[in-house]
């Protein structure tokens, strides 16, 4: 994911929303898409956030978890 900004990138948090139980023997598939890219300026300067959303489903097509993961780029 190439965003033209900054020289360093760091993980900026992950949020997991459980939707259904996950059992031993389950086969999980993941589907991720880019959710958002935005800039935020604060005291320490400007950071650009890249947000990905991933949906985890089991072998029956049931969604077991929704995950949102962010990365931050800065100078």
């Amino acid at each position, binding site marked *: *994911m*190439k*965003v*033209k*900004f900054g020289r360093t990138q760091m993980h900026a948090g992950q949020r*997991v*929303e*459980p939707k259904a*139980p*996950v*059992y*031993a*023997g*389950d*086969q*999980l*598939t*993941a*589907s*991720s*898409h*880019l959710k958002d*890219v*935005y*800039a935020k*300026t604060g005291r320490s300067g*400007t950071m*650009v956030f890249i947000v990905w959303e*991933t949906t*985890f489903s089991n*072998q029956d097509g049931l969604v*077991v*978890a929704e*995950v949102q993961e962010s990365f931050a780029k800065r100078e």
Partner: protein
Amino acid sequence: MAMELEYDRSLYGVEHKAGPFEITNEIIDRANSSVGETGPAFHSDETAREAGFRGRIAPPTLC
């Protein structure tokens, strides 16, 4: 303050798929240990069923 960010916007709407990943008892053990999960339903089928689950469950942070 609007900032024009340069990146590949064609990525919106594209789904990236991965898996299938089989969730084994070993994986559940390791996930429990990573987050310090001690709840009984995460450790044995019997106690999980008492809590209303079909069997032993994995901590969601596994995802």
